[in-house]
């Protein structure tokens, strides 16, 4: 555990150095958040009945999405990890008395969290004080407030576990570029990052909710805004936990296999 903490610390403090990038990120997220909200407002005005949720709930969803972007962005990959596989530097990492999967998982989680810590507070702080209905509302009820942090953590872990699969694929393809693009597009669309899942047709929603992608950002955000509550919320968290276990076990097993037939590149 101690080792993982150290990896976390070195990566986290490293990530905190990039303050200018964080401010630029905050500005981008505001612009993007406003644009999206204005777009949905236009839809809402033309037909409020076609909306699956309250307008303010949707606005909260979008602000949460922008604030926690760094936790859930599917396109973030640690270049160091890819480099070490492709160049063969993984040799050194394999010479360490620790678990490679755990080490990479922690490094990735730390990098994402460092980015989130720098960006989320200014966004949330401003979004709270925006005039209604363009502000971020409070959690829908007490249960939602309790379940939200649990769900965020689970969703975050699922996100990292799935990006681990992309890293491991680099052992086979040596250039993860293609798989990266494919994985990112699929995850973005199916996880509710582009359009929240409630806006999909009902039949599609049923399927999406069972896939691992809905267990990332969609689950916690929908719990927060109260779209999913009560028994349903508990079920959502159970599905998240299920996918976390599956992706963790699957990723570990796959990495073990990959290492067995690994060719450490270079002399």
């Amino acid at each position, binding site marked *: 555990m*101690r*080792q993982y*903490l*150290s*990896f976390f610390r*070195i990566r986290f403090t*490293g990530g905190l150095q990039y303050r200018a990038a964080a401010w630029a990120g905050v500005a981008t997220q505001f612009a993007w958040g406003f644009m999206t909200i204005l777009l949905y407002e236009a839809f809402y005005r033309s037909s409020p009945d076609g909306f699956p949720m309250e307008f303010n709930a949707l606005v909260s969803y979008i602000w949460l999405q922008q604030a926690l972007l760094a936790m859930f962005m599917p396109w973030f990959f640690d270049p160091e990890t890819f480099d070490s596989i492709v*160049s*063969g*530097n993984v*040799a*050194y990492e*394999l*010479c*360490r*008395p*620790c*678990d490679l999967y755990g080490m990479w998982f922690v490094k990735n989680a730390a990098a994402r969290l460092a980015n989130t810590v720098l960006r989320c507070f200014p966004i949330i702080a401003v979004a709270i004080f925006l005039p209604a209905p363009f502000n971020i509302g409070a959690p829908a009820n007490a249960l939602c407030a309790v379940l939200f942090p649990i769900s965020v953590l689970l969703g975050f872990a699922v996100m990292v576990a799935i990006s681990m699969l992309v890293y491991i694929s680099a052992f086979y393809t040596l250039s993860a570029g293609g798989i990266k693009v494919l994985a990112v597009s699929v995850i973005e669309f199916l996880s509710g990052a582009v359009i929240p899942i409630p806006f999909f047709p009902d039949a599609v929603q049923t399927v999406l909710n069972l896939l691992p992608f809905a267990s990332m950002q969609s689950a916690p955000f929908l719990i927060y805004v109260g779209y999913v509550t009560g028994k349903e919320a508990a079920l959502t968290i159970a599905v998240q936990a299920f996918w976390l276990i599956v992706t963790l076990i699957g990723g570990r097993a796959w990495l073990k296999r990959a290492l*067995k037939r*690994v*060719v*450490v590149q*270079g*002399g």
Partner: protein
Amino acid sequence: MIELSNVNKTFKVAKRNAGFTEAVKALFMKKYEYIHALNDVTFTIRDGETVGYIGPNGAGKSSTIKIMSGIMAPDSGECVIDGRVPWKDRKAHVKEIGVVFGQRSQLWWDVPVIDSFELLKDVYRIPFDEYKKNLNRLTELLGIGEIMKMPTRQLSLGQRMRCEIAASLLHGPKILFLDEPTIGLDAVSKIAVRDFVKALNKENRTTVILTTHDMQDIEALTDRILLIGNGRILMDGTLDELKSRNTSKKTLVITYAGEKLPSVERVAVVKDIGGHAELVIDTGEISVAEAIAAISAAAEIKDITVQGTTVDEMVVSLYKEFKI
């Protein structure tokens, strides 16, 4: 104690000729070739030995190191190090070994070297006292006290290599694998690294396995040589044994008065230009003293140097002998 017996490793390598048509063809029909990187490799290394592992590029040196350090599993054969199979018991095994890959870096690029050391301390769970003790000793022996505070990216290659070696030894390993540790280093750094390894082996009885192309490394450090070529162990012996194979030949470089050296019996002339000549004798046939007497009888010698064969030449002749 390191024991390898009948270790084999084969790589599948995609191959194609140059050119666009060949590239398109390869899309549909990829040709593979099997390269036998290691072929029945067998050897035993006792505790406290320093072994030079030599061979031309692509002979299988790095593959062997990778197997011994638990990074790679062989196709067949056995490898037992201190009672453990490295790739099966990887975590326990790597605690006892230190590895330096001369062409790679294990230090974090952006942070001061000491931060990397601190991280390694936690990774290897080195107790604080032991870490302090090892660190003090390493900084003193390798002269990295000041360098340690600088970020890795600002170090010269020689400085970095010294830090890399220190990083591999913080946890006090019993076995040290050095894969081309002096590659690209200047004379001063090379000597610093050699002296350090020597001291380490002497004081801690650390087993050192060294691959290198620098024969001076071999001469300075190792008491035993393993020669590998085309994946096979071709020779296993001491440096003296290797020398005795070759020492019957001596080279005499002379400067003499005159234009052409008259031929002398049992002395072969390699080069003879305008008063400078290079001669080779076989001490089995004629002693150095006899040869000098014979030459000085034939010509007026102004200067003379007697050279034995260098280790480099010995290795070249070994490579020739084994056709690798």
